C-alpha cells in the first residue's frame, strides 16, 4: 500500500458525506420543468424557427448573389454590400451569443452584461460604418446574368428579396405556389416566402419589445405598490384602472391615423397600454412576500431598498409574471397583425398581417396562398407562445408540478 493512499490527518471528512443532489437554483429548476413538457418544447421549437428566420433573413432570401464572378473576372459579394445596419447587428450577435452560452464558468449576470455591452457596441459601430447603397435595383443581377456578364454566381436558397417586385418579370402577378415561388407571389409580384421570412423580424420584435416595455413598467410599479402598500398601493391601483380603461386597439388606430407609421411607436403603444396585468401580478406577489421572514431578514441585515425589492423579492415572485408575459408576447403579435391587416401597419416592411390583408386583393379575387401561409404563421406563433405560457404555468403550480424544483 502506497503512502499516497492514506489521507493526511487534517483532511476534513468531506468524502464521508453522501453525494449531493445536483445544485440547481430555483430558476434552473423551473426552466428544467417547463421545457421538459412536450407543449413547451413544441412552442420553443417554433419560436426557434421564427428566430432563425428573423436573424438569417438576408442570407435565406435575397435578390443579391452571395458571391459572384463577373465575365471580366471580378469577384464580389453584392449581398454583403447591401446588408443594412440592422442585418449586420443581428448577424454579428449570433457568434457572440453562442460564445456566451458556451462560457459556463462566467456567472449569468455577467454574461447578460457582456451581451448587452457588445450589443450596444455593435449597434453603434454598424450605424456608423455600414452604409448600404441608397438605391437598390433588385433585378440588376438577373439582368446582368441574362446579358451574360456574370461568369457564375451563388444565390441564397430563395433568390428574391422581400421588396423585390420582379420588375423584369411582369407576368409574375399572383402566381400560385410553384417550384419557382414555393408559396406563390403577391399582387405586386413579390415572393410570398421571402416576405414571410423577412416579416418574422417584425413579429418577433413586436412581441418581445412591446412585452419588455410592459414588463419593466409593470414590475417596477407593481413591486413598489406591493412593498409599500397603503397609500402607494391605493394610488397605483387607481392608475392601473385608468390604463385598463384605455382600449388599446382604438388608441393604436387613432395614433397611426395622425402620426407617421413607425414600428417603434406601435411597440411603445402596445407596451405602455399593456402593463396593467403585470402590475397586478407583481403587486399580489409582493404583498405576499413582504411579510416573509427572508424579506425581513434582508431588511434586518441593512440591505438597500433596491436590493430587497429586485434581488430578494422579485426572483421569488416573478414566475406568475413570466406566465402572463408569454401570453403577452402572443397578444402583442396579434395586435400588430390586426393593425397591419386593417392596412394601418407598416408601409415598406413586410408583415404577416399586411400580407393576410392581400388575400382579398384589390382585384377582388380570393388568393388562397395569401390567406393560408401568413395566417398560419400568425396562428402558429401565437399558439407557440401560448404553449410556453401554459407549460410555465403548470410548472409553477404545485398541483401539476412534475418534480420538486431541484
Amino acid at each position, binding site marked *: 500500500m502506497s503512502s499516497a493512499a492514506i489521507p493526511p490527518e487534517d483532511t476534513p471528512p468531506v468524502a464521508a458525506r453522501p453525494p449531493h443532489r445536483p445544485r*440547481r437554483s430555483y430558476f434552473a429548476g423551473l426552466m428544467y420543468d417547463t421545457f421538459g413538457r412536450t407543449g413547451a418544447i413544441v412552442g420553443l421549437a417554433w419560436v426557434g424557427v421564427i428566430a432563425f428566420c428573423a436573424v438569417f433573413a438576408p442570407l435565406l432570401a435575397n435578390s443579391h448573389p452571395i458571391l459572384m464572378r463577373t465575365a471580366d473576372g471580378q469577384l464580389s459579394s453584392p449581398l454583403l454590400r447591401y446588408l443594412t445596419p440592422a442585418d449586420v447587428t443581428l448577424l454579428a450577435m449570433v457568434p457572440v451569443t453562442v460564445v456566451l452560452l458556451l462560457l459556463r464558468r462566467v456567472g449569468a449576470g455577467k454574461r447578460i452584461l457582456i451581451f448587452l455591452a457588445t450589443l450596444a457596441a455593435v449597434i453603434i459601430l454598424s450605424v456608423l460604418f455600414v452604409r448600404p447603397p441608397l438605391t437598390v435595383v433588385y433585378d440588376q443581377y438577373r439582368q446582368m446574368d441574362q446579358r451574360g456578364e456574370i461568369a457564375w454566381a451563388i444565390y441564397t436558397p430563395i433568390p428574391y428579396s422581400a421588396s423585390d417586385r420582379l420588375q423584369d418579370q411582369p407576368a409574375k402577378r399572383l402566381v400560385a405556389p410553384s417550384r419557382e415561388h414555393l408559396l406563390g407571389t403577391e399582387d405586386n409580384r413579390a415572393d410570398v416566402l421571402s416576405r414571410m421570412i423577412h416579416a418574422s423580424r417584425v413579429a418577433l420584435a413586436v412581441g418581445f419589445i412591446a412585452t419588455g416595455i410592459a414588463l419593466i413598467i409593470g414590475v417596477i410599479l407593481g413591486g413598489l405598490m406591493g412593498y409599500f402598500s397603503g397609500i402607494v398601493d391605493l394610488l397605483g391601483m387607481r392608475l392601473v384602472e385608468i390604463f385598463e380603461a384605455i382600449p388599446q386597439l382604438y388608441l393604436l388606430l387613432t395614433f397611426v391615423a395622425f402620426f407617421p407609421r413607425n414600428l417603434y411607436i406601435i411597440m411603445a403603444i402596445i407596451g405602455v397600454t399593456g402593463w396593467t396585468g403585470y402590475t397586478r401580478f407583481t403587486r399580489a406577489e409582493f404583498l405576499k412576500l413582504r411579510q416573509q421572514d427572508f424579506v425581513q431578514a434582508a431588511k434586518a441585515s441593512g440591505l438597500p431598498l433596491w436590493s430587497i425589492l429586485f434581488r430578494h423579492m422579485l426572483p421569488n415572485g416573478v414566475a406568475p409574471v413570466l406566465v402572463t408575459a408569454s401570453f403577452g408576447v402572443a397578444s402583442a403579435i396579434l395586435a400588430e397583425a390586426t393593425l397591419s391587416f386593417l392596412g394601418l401597419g407598416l408601409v415598406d416592411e413586410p408583415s404577416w398581417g399586411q400580407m393576410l390583408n392581400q388575400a382579398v386583393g384589390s382585384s377582388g379575387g380570393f388568393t388562397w396562398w395569401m390567406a393560408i401561409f401568413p395566417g398560419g404563421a400568425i396562428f402558429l406563433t401565437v399558439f407557440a407562445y401560448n404553449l410556453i405560457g401554459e407549460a410555465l404555468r403548470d410548472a409553477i403550480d404545485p398541483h401539476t408540478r412534475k418534480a420538486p424544483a431541484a
Partner: protein
Amino acid sequence: MSDAEPILTIEDLAVSFPGPPGQRRTQAVDRVNLSIYPKQTLAVVGESGSGKSVSAMSILRLIPCPPGRIDSGRILWKPDPRSPADDLLRFTDKQMRSVRGNQIAMIFQEPMTSLNPVYTVGEQILEAVLLHQQVTRADAVVIAERALKDVGIADPAGRLKEYPHQLSGGMRQRVMIAMALACEPRLLLADEPTTALDVTIQAQILELLRKLQHNKNMSILLITHDLGVVAENADVVAVMYAGRVVEYADVQTLFTRPLHPYTRGLLRSMPVLGQNVDRLDTVMDGATIPDDFPAGYKVAAHIEDANPPDGYGGPNAYLYEVEPSHWVLCEADAAKRGMKTPPHVDVIRRAADAVAS
C-alpha cells in the same frame, strides 16, 4: 447587573397599531424600559402578543410605519463606551442601514423561511459582508467560510455553494447565525431562535450562541416563551404581558422570588419533572389584547389565589424597584406613599417562599 454602561437602553417605548375601524389604536408596546449591558444576555419572555417581538423589531426600526407608529420613547444605542449614546429612533434611513446587520444583527424564528430560496447560502452571506465591510470579494469569501466554520458547519466551502433547500432545519439556523455574526455585531436580537427546532438541535444552537457570545464579545437579546431556555441562558429576564414589562430581574431572583402575580402564574404553569398532576395550572386569560390589561389586575384568574391583590396593572402602574435590581410593575401610589414595596408584595413573597420550599 454590571457596573459598565448599558450598550442599549430602551426608555419608555410605546408602539401602537390601528385597531378595528372606529376604535382606538391597539397599544402593542406600552412604556417599556429595558437595558442590555455588554456581553449580557437579556431574555424577554411572555405569551404571544405580549409585545416582545415588536419591542425587538423597534430596535432595528423594522416595524412597518404606517400602519405601526412609535408613539414615544427613546432607544439609546451606545456601541462605544467612550462616545455618547445615539437615539436609534432619530436615525435617518441611511444611518439605520449601517446599523442593521452591521452593529445590531437579528435572527428569526423560522429557519425554514428566513433564507432566500433562490440564492445559495454563499451569495446571501457575501451580500451582507460586502455591504458592511470594505473587503474584496475574495476576502469576503474567506470571512463567510470562517463564519460557517464558527457555527460548526463541516465543509464550509462546499456549503457556500448550496441552496437553502439542501440544508436541514438546524443547519439553516446555523447558517442564519453565521450570516448574522459574519459582520461581528455588538448586539444580536434572537427572536425565538429555537422555537421551530427539535429539542436536541435547540440545545446545540443555544450552546453555540453562548460560545459565540463569549468569543465575540457580544450582547444578546433573547426572545422566547420557553422558561427552560431562559433559566439556562439568560443573565437578566424581562417578563412581558400585554405590551408591558411586568417584572424585570436577574434570572436567579426571578425564578426564586417572582413578585408580580403574572410571573408567578407563569412559573406555576410549568410542569415539574416527576410530579403527577391531573391539570396544570394555567394563565387563564390567554392572548389578551393590550387594551384589556385590567386596572385592578385580576390575579385570581391567574394564580387562583383567594385574595386577589390590586394594583399590578392598569394605566397608572409603572416599574418600581421593589428590591435591589428587581423591578415590578405596580401602581404609583405605592411609590407615592414612600413604600419600597407595593401592597401585597409581602403576601406574595410568603407565598413564593412556600412554593420554593
